[in-house]
């Protein structure tokens, strides 16, 4: 709310100044949970970039039988086993899987995959949803009806179910799962943005701009879009966590990443199916832990953003 009034009178000032003047940002940074979320996200991005640059993809994809110990528990846990004797305490901090691959390196590389495909999914659905939502709000009538009724149909399915139905059409694979999830998330963005845009359209300055002769694209890009940014950002952040969960879920069910890929969902799937009942818990534990922490980071930040935008919830009552 506060950002809306802000952007009106700041006018042509630079983006950095706008941000500095924004009560939203200072509010956000004074929220400890949101800062914790930001820290987690930064850490995960750093891990993702590090593993993309320095982890050898071959060593985490192909079988390492013969090179590494097989199905070894985390090395710092087992004091006297052959593994620690030969390799040192921190050789395999998360243990190894049935193909002797180092789970630690695989989990690190999985961070890169989750971040990459998560960003693409959320980015694509944000773009699509924002476009459709603004078009629906701005042109109204038939355009609005056609777009929003289509969104209603997509929203009539539980999200994971719709993703599965789309996978049945598109076939399996990480990229196809990304497309399916993009379509699943688009309606949410379209709804949020349409609502926000309709509110902006009621304002008199839009009428004034149009009276001055501004064309549709200019009104949309210069005036409507900036005023919808706050709800879009919150929705994207919260949706990012969900995207990571759903991407992994589809790999977990066997429709996403192909065998060998160090994706968290696939590691969990193999670990749960083959390792849980035999007591090899580390196989599925660590990929799940990283997944949960990452999602928690996005949820903390998204929650903090929502609170910062809605100051009513802060003051305490006796």
């Amino acid at each position, binding site marked *: 709310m506060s950002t809306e009034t802000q952007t009106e009178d700041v006018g042509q000032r630079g983006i950095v100044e706008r941000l500095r003047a924004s009560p939203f940002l200072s509010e956000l940074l004074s929220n400890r949970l949101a800062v914790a979320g930001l820290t987690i996200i930064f850490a995960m991005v750093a891990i993702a970039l590090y593993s993309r640059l320095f982890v050898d993809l071959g060593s985490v994809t192909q079988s390492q039988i013969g090179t590494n110990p097989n199905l070894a528990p985390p090395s710092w846990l087992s004091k006297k086993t052959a593994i620690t004797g030969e390799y040192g305490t921190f050789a395999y901090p998360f243990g190894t899987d049935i193909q002797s691959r180092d789970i630690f390196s695989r989990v690190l590389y999985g961070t890169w995959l989750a971040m990459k495909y998560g960003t693409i999914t959320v980015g694509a659905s944000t773009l699509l949803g924002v476009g459709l939502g603004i078009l629906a709000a701005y042109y109204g009538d038939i355009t609005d009806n056609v777009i929003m009724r289509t969104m209603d149909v997509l929203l009539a399915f539980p999200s994971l179910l719709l993703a599965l139905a789309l*996978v049945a059409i598109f076939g399996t694979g990480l990229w196809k799962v990304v497309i399916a999830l993009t379509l699943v998330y688009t309606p949410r963005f379209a709804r949020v943005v349409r609502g926000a845009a309709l509110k902006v359209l009621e304002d008199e300055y839009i009428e004034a701009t149009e009276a001055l002769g501004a064309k549709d694209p200019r009104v949309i890009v210069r005036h409507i879009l900036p005023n919808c940014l706050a709800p879009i950002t919150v929705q994207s952040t919260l949706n990012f*966590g969900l995207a990571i969960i759903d991407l992994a879920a589809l790999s977990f069910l066997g429709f996403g990443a192909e065998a060998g890929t160090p994706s968290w969902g696939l590691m*969990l*799937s193999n670990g749960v199916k083959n390792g849980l009942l035999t007591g090899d818990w580390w196989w599925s534990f660590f990929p799940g832990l990283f997944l949960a922490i990452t999602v928690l980071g996005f949820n903390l930040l998204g929650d903090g953003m929502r609170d910062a935008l809605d100051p009513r919830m802060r003051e305490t009552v006796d």
Partner: protein
Amino acid sequence: MISKRFVIKRLLLLVPVLFGVATFVFAILHLAPGDPARVIAGQRASEEFVRQVRTELGLNDPIWVQYGRFLLEAVQLEFGNSYQIQKGTPVKQILRYKLPVTLEMALYGQFLGILFGIPVGLLGAIKQDAISDHVTRIGALAGISVPIYWSGPLLILLFAQVLGWFPASGRIASTFDINPITGVITFDTLVRGNFAAFESAAMHLFLPAAVIGIYSMALISRMMRSSMLEVIRQDYMRTARAKGQGSKITILKHGFRNALIPVVTVIGIQFGTLLGGAVLTETVFGIAGIGTLLVSAIQVGDYPVVQGTVLMFAGLFTLVNLLVDVTYSYLDPRIEQ
């Protein structure tokens, strides 16, 4: 009072949505790769036989004839026979015994979530910013951040593997052979008077219900807290306190009922999400409900089963949303305007 006009209006709005849903489900068969006739006839069947199967399935008719037939049959919940999974069995009959399995699990989970979620959220709101509030808030946030396919295995590890209190997977011990009446196993075993079987079924249900319950409790307590916080700030609450009523009585008598309204919505929406999540819960716990049915139907290309399951899920989801809206309008009559 539930207004008739509101319900009718809401039902009419459903028509185009359900129509769109049915169209999408019809499209699955025609957009998906592979020839259904070939799947049924088998890979080695002669071209002539495949052609015969195709005619029998009506796949040679014009697309709009097929579409019309699909809509007519879908209204009667007929989706043809399964290609692969239970070859030749009508999809309707398969769903008849798989659906109760999923619903039973989801309902018990949801029950646990409501039972614990509401008091926790209420406590958080009453003691806002106390340590207990922070702990439960972070706990709830963690609860919705942990995917079911990780919390499930963790519970299995702790309670089934290490402690051995509950069985790790399945619906009932294999020593019992319960002929389904309704398909709801805790009901069937009780009706048949087989208490040992009931106990086994209940023990098997506990972990899946707990996993669902944790997730739903997290969501419900968050909503309960924020909704209660909003209500506490209303003028009528201040008036009640100013009249000299104790603040606890005010909160319970005036606040709780009003704060419950958005919680009802969350519970409804949450139930829909649960149905989607059933795919994962059933996979983790090895339960043969419609979730696992859908997964294997997609894997083998059994499209009538895929269509039937997806339409069933969408129908249930829409029905739950309708019920939520009607309940909402009952609790808060202003919503109609």
